[in-house]
């Protein structure tokens, strides 16, 4: 069985990644699934590393696999049986693969870069697990390339203004929807491959929003100017994308590696505005290996900085109104797992059954 990894990414810190993970984990267990868990950040701690506010804890059950760094092994209350010390390193020591022996809490800090996460997921697939849950960190997305499906945790911690929050979520949803067929670099046609190295030469002056001259040179689509397919590999910045758009002639197609490449390129709303404007210019854009987005979760909590006392205070947006605002504008399912998350697990379960066959142990 090819066990799938579900990533729980967030738009920012405190948007509800760990709460979502915890909900999925408990739902999976109750439904007879055996989840394995790890994190690309640091999760399960009692108090937030930045705000000092309480954090959701992470409870695990016997038989589950966890992958966490050496210095986290003794921090939880669950008894763990070490299976293996991996060669993957973190600021908190090497990552260990362990089996939960008795129920309790764990603190997770797993591999924090894409290549390391791929190695770990492959290793976990050799053990007994029916789904692998990968907790995110801050708004980090790159390592999530190694997962098979994504849940995006959105919350008031990103924007405490509902309209901003909705606008950003709409943009995110839009970018996740840009899917299209894979295009081989060697296929026939007027094709231009643009590498990360050349893209890096562009856009060093984002204030002006214009590419540098050097960048224009680097991106000129070729002497014949006849290319119509542009395959963009590696890191992309918004400025580089703007530069590219200015230089190519319609009709043309910009074919990206994957969705995350686009999400990382810059401010999501600005990227979405640019992408939305391409169709009328006769330029198509899509990601040829899209990472499936299964759903959004929404968290009304946000930490508010109190200048007088110099501490963060817990604040909340009105939960029902927030969920309703997103549900009506975003073309993906939206869940507030603290209010009702049943549907989220059903959705993940359906995904697992479709992609990996039977999941229960």
């Amino acid at each position, binding site marked *: 069985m090819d066990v799938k990894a579900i990533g729980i990414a967030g738009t920012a810190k405190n948007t509800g990644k760990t709460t979502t993970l915890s909900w999925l984990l408990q739902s999976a267990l109750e439904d007879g699934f055996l989840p394995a868990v790890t994190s690309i*950040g640091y999760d399960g701690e009692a108090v937030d590393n*930045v705000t000092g506010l309480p954090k959701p804890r992470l409870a695990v059950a016997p038989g589950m696999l966890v992958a966490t760094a050496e210095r986290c092994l003794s921090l939880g209350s669950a008894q763990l049986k070490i299976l293996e010390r991996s060669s993957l390193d973190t600021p908190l020591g090497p990552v260990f693969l362990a089996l939960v022996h008795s129920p309790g809490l764990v603190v997770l800090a797993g591999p924090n870069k894409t290549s390391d996460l791929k190695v770990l997921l492959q290793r976990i697939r050799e053990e007994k697990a029916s789904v692998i849950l990968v907790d995110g960190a801050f708004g980090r997305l790159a390592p999530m390339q190694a997962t098979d499906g994504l849940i995006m945790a959105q919350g008031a911690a990103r924007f405490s203004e509902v309209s901003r929050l909705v606008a950003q979520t709409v943009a995110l949803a839009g970018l996740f929807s840009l899917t299209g067929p894979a295009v081989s670099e060697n296929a026939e046609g007027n094709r231009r491959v643009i590498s990360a190295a050349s893209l*890096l*030469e562009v856009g060093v002056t984002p204030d002006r929003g214009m590419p540098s001259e050097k960048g224009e040179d680097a991106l000129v689509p070729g002497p014949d100017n006849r290319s119509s397919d542009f395959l963009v590999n590696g890191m992309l910045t918004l400025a580089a994308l703007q530069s590219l758009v200015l230089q190519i002639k319609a009709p043309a197609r910009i074919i990206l590696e994957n969705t995350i490449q686009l999400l990382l390129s810059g401010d999501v709303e600005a990227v979405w505005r640019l992408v939305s404007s391409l169709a009328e210019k006769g330029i198509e854009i899509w990601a040829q290996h899209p990472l499936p987005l299964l759903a959004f979760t929404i968290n009304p909590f946000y930490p508010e900085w109190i200048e007088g006392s110099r501490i963060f205070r817990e604040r909340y947006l009105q939960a029902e109104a927030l969920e309703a605002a997103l549900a009506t504008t975003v073309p993906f399912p939206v869940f507030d797992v603290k209010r009702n998350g049943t549907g989220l697990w059903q959705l993940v379960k359906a995904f697992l059954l479709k992609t990996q066959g039977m999941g229960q142990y």
Partner: protein
Amino acid sequence: MSIPSMTKKKVLLAPVDPVHDVGLKMIRRALQERGHEAILLAPDLPVEEILREIARSQPDFVFLSRTLGYGVTETLARIIDLADFAGLREKTRFAVGGMAIRPQLAAELGFDRGFGPKTTVEEAVAYVEGRKLTERESGPSRAKRNLSSNYSYQFKHPVISQVLTELVARTSGWAAVRTSPGVKRALLRQKILQVTQRDETSPIPEPVSLMAQTPLTPEAPFSQRRELHELRRQYAQLAGGAIRAYYDQGDLPPKTRSLSKEELAFLTNLANKGKGEERQLHLPDQRPLIFVQYGTGCPFMDIAHIKLAEAWGADGVIHFDPSWGARAEGLLEGNLSHEEDGSILTPQNLAIIQSSLTRGTLWQVRAHRGLNTPETVVLAGELGADLTKINIAYGSLGGGTDPDRLVVDGYQSMKLAAAYGLPYDVVTNEELAGVPAHKALAGMLISAALGITLGGRPILQPLFAYSPEVMIGGQMDDNYVDFNAAKILALREIIDAPLWPGAPVGFLTQSEDRVQSSLATSLHAMLAASMGVEAITIASSDEAYSGGPISAASRVDTLRAVAEGFRFLGAARIQHTDRAREWADKMVHDIEEVLEKALEAGSLRDALYQGVLGSQEDGAYPGRAGRGTVREIS
């Protein structure tokens, strides 16, 4: 010193911050001095530009520095994400440093390494060179230091040496043929612990109140159970009323209770928990070592205090038992909590404390003053303490124990300490009662000389104190330096032995004001450092005025203040005035005179009873506890 070209590394340093790049500049200098290539980018470049530089220069390491605020973390996370996606993390290792950076946050942000506020340049260089820090670079090594190994214990003052030799001979001659219930209990306790240690599944006996009905452990052989039962029966017969009631009926003294099973499980878990980030109090080869006292009565608070002290750089911790423990014949057993100050001495309590200690922490279990002195040395020795505390003169004159009893018990305690290889300090706290320094030091020297003769390694503990003597005599009207320094100078003229000013230094100069108390403690510690002594004991900043258990914050106050004092002082020294030398000379002369009077009186016991080492006029009273309990060995 430079490094071979093969191991030269390229390091890109980027301040992701408009102003804060001092740390990176310090690291750049150190890296360049070691022969590495270090490229420092301009501060506050856009994320894209930093990444372009990384892609262009292909460094082995990228060091980012940034002061954190909410939202800034997102910038750092984005740099890492873009680098990850661009494939730049495969050959380059990313580190982040800044005041708010902790390893946990570095992990969360996706970095390979995080450098927090206490990071040294050496740490950053060692990371680049892929090696561990040397001891000098890494600060305090947690290897235990021996306080007494560098001393010859030779007396340098011929007259004092001669008088002490005679006093020791007379005192030993008298004490060696006598015994007491305290001495007998110590030997029984040794056997009890040795019997129980034969059964590896339970190194420490169960509370005896359960023992009468239940076996030591279900697996323990019957013969062993019987042997233990018999030893405890004999022990109970030698114990005083309240302690005996415990062994006979399981009754605990007032304000004392056993921990429940749940509490004990929780406590064991707490003891085994690692400690947090370790702070540096002084460099590994710097003196003095810093000791703090614990003894809240509550085992949980004790362990919390110990872990806190360790984390803030203390070198050693001292167990304080309840004051009534010195006056009761016998020690209790079990995991016991005490409602008032002082943590009850039992094998079980000590075993848990021992298990909570970090490997390098020195642990002192004090035996010095009461009716259980020899037995406490046994507990200290059997349970792995590093140090104990024995002083016959103080215990008799300020500690409330009958001089005859403490001479016999002290003599045997010193023999036991020598057998266990336990160094012990010899305190002079009778000064706090009003005994002048020269008399207290004379009493300390007799105890120390006796200990040396018995093969022990005593550590002399003069007080750095605003004592009644100086309050009345005015020796500290101008400064706190000279009279304290005089004690050190005087002792150094008399003997080559380790010095450990106590106890705690500057305690009587503290007030309700935590800032004042912390500063006073730090200044006394700086004086101790200037005088080159081996160790000091420090109090918390609320120890004198807490009216209950001391608080964690106050504990940190003085540890931080002392660390800052040491940082300020470095190899510089506080200079005493000529008065210190004059007072030291007078002190040596007065000590000689006191010792000669002690010899005229007879031996140590006679000197104590007759007030030679501290009179009622001074504020010293020969104690009464244990009077009439000494027997000649037939």
